């Protein structure tokens, strides 16, 4: 039998190793992207920003950045507004089929994205919507909505209904209560929801792959298209940009919540 101290030490070592294994691939790509060598080498022998120059110097990559940003921001606005209304209704409303509707609204995360993508493509191809960026944002909103709902439902749970009642008693209208009480109290949750729905869209590949056409290639779609040909180092630079965006969103979320009740990442489960 192992002693308890030895066992605890072994477990700790194992967990440190596994956690290292979880972040290492991401960190390695980020470091390798600054390599000055002809191919991706880790550790790099010389440092340079040549892959970033090639990435940002290519108008197709720049176009992909703009497409991703445009679609991401639009998705974020759509899903946060629609999601907030739905989350509030599910929280405070009393109506039939509430559980069924709540479960139904979450199904887009469970149904494989390939099915959602093919089905929306089937519809879009017949309506000439392939390559239309606002439409891609609408499609992304479907998969971002569950994320927003989970975050906002947990945010609204902390809003005391008594405060809303008090405001009503003091003569505030229903809309006024919404604007002056509910919205300000739920604001940190709203910002988290906006950040994570942006990330969902910014990182989404499968739906974009079908809907982008040649006019609206997003960053993940362009990465996909070039990876099918070869593993070229420019993609390391693009990947690092995507990682930086994710890290920034997580940092902003942590900052806004100041770790109140844990990061939204946990609520998003």
């Amino acid at each position, binding site marked *: 039998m192992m002693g308890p101290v030895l066992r605890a030490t072994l477990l700790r070592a194992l967990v440190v190793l596994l956690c290292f294994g979880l972040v290492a691939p991401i960190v390695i790509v980020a470091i390798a992207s600054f390599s000055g060598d002809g191919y991706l*080498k880790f550790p790099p022998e010389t440092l340079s920003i040549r892959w970033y120059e090639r990435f940002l110097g290519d108008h197709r990559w720049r176009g992909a950045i703009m497409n991703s940003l445009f679609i991401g921001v639009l998705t974020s606005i759509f899903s946060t507004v629609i999601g907030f209304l739905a989350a509030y209704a599910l929280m405070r409303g009393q109506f039939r089929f509430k559980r069924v509707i709540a*479960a139904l609204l979450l199904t887009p995360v469970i149904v494989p994205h390939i099915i959602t993508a093919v089905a929306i*493509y089937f519809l879009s191809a017949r309506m000439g919507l392939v390559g239309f960026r606002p439409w891609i944002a609408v499609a992304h909103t479907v998969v971002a909505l569950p994320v927003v709902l989970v975050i906002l439902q947990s945010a609204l749970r902390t809003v005391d209904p008594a405060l809303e009642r008090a405001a009503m008693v003091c003569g505030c209208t229903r809309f006024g209560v919404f604007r002056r009480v509910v919205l300000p109290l739920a604001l940190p949750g709203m910002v988290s929801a906006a950040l994570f729905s942006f990330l969902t869209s910014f990182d989404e590949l499968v739906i974009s792959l079908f809907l982008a056409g040649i006019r609206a290639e997003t960053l993940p779609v362009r990465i996909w298209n070039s990876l099918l040909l070869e593993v070229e180092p420019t993609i390391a630079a693009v990947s690092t940009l995507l990682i930086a965006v994710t890290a920034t969103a997580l940092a902003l979320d942590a900052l806004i919540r100041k770790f109140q009740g844990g990061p939204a990442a946990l609520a998003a489960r």
Partner: protein
Amino acid sequence: MPLGRLAAWLMLAPALLLLAGVFLLPIGWFLIGSLSELGGFAEIWEEAQDVLFSGTVGRVLLNTNGIGAIVTLLVLVIGYPVSYALSRARGFAFTAILLCIVLPYFTSTIVRTYAWMVLLGRNGLINRILLGLHLVDEPVNLLYNRTGVIIGMTYVLLPYMVLTLFAAMKAVDPKLLQAAEGMGASPVTVFRRVFMPLTLHGVIAGVLITFILAIGFFITPALMGGPGDIMIAMLIEREVELTQNWPSAAMMTIVLLAVTLILYGFYSRFAEQEAPR
């Protein structure tokens, strides 16, 4: 402040319209529209037997289940200790472990897949370490085969398992563990007789969610696999993009969708279940 029924429905309307118009309706239309190209029920049934019992689809379904099962098992074995440590950690250790899980979790799947393609290539870091340690004499093929798919998918799906297990483990009352210890149980017994049974529903939920996500996977097997590692999602994509065989894509979609929804039904029972008392 309770909300009136009309107000509640009005607030839900945009979400429900979106779900109906851009999710349920397209899926229904795609399935019914594609299949009705074939004719009546008899023709569809005949074609379905041809497609679903063909050698190709059989092999692909076998691949899908095999890869899904291995990946789920690996993710559970690797994820369990990490979740356990996370559920026990406080302060800095908690934040550090959480960050190691959450950063990959929210990084784009294609970026995570690319990272492993760089690491596993013939001149990649893993091969150079193996060569440097003289464990192998020449570079090992770790990419564009089953090994690559399994490594890549295990990495991508690990955070889902860890976060699901964590939710179950955090709900365990530490007093129960102390009580067992106080009554003379060894740490192994406490783990085996108290902690494990109390977190079993989390393990089942984690296994189900990982398997559900694994069998619908597309990006990682498409980029890291070889010709023998085609999974069902890839076959659906091929039928649509290459051969434009919509009826056959619809049939495979029905199989994948049905399996996913049935497993999800079980999942929601275990995920919502309170820890047994």
